[in-house]
């Protein structure tokens, strides 16, 4: 019995009250899941997408956008200023 316990755990599980009468189905289900996992991981490896880190640092030119926003805001007032001081413009 002891050697049975060590080498065949499935039989031990069979004796647990929770799974009484369901063991056959469960085993085939487990085998199915295992198969899916193997196929799935094989597919995953085949369709692997490699992402390379850029060799240059990523620089986002925020200053340009901020300046453009300011320039657009000031444009109307600057136009008036130029018109009002046309002697120096």
């Amino acid at each position, binding site marked *: 019995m002891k050697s049975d316990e060590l080498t065949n755990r499935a039989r031990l599980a069979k004796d647990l009250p929770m799974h009484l009468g369901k063991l056959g189905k469960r085993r085939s289900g487990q085998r199915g899941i295992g198969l899916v996992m193997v196929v799935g991981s094989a597919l995953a490896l085949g369709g692997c997408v490699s992402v390379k880190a850029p060799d240059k640092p990523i620089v986002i030119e925020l200053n340009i956008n901020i300046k453009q926003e300011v*320039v657009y*805001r000031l*444009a109307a*007032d*600057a136009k008036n*200023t130029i018109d*009002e001081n*046309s002697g120096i*413009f």
Partner: protein
Amino acid sequence: MVKKLVPMAAKASFLALAAGIVVLGATALSAPAAEAQTRDPAYAAARAAGQVGEKADGYLGYPVPPSAEIRRMAEDINIKRRAVYAQKAQEQHATVEDYAFTSGCLLISQTRAGEKYQAPNGSWETRTSAPPLRDSRCP
């Protein structure tokens, strides 16, 4: 309720009218006191001759090496421009540089054919009837 509203509306319109008159009066009074409204003939001539041109930063520059007289005149105008930019920039809560740059965009647009302006790459260009080359941030 309606009777009460009518005098109030009349009062409001009278106040608006009074405010308008005050504004008009102030404008009329300040107009002659403001900066000379037409260009000095020497400045106008220097512009037309391409001895001074509009830089992208909102100030006058020299497309060709200036004479002492041209330099003195342009520096004088640039000092006055800077004073105006500084005052207006403060009113608009902007930096003097941003205000001057915005003005520079407009001033380059306003150049007449034959006048000089500075392109974004720093080169001096002669304005033609075609739109001038301006900084991409210009409005």
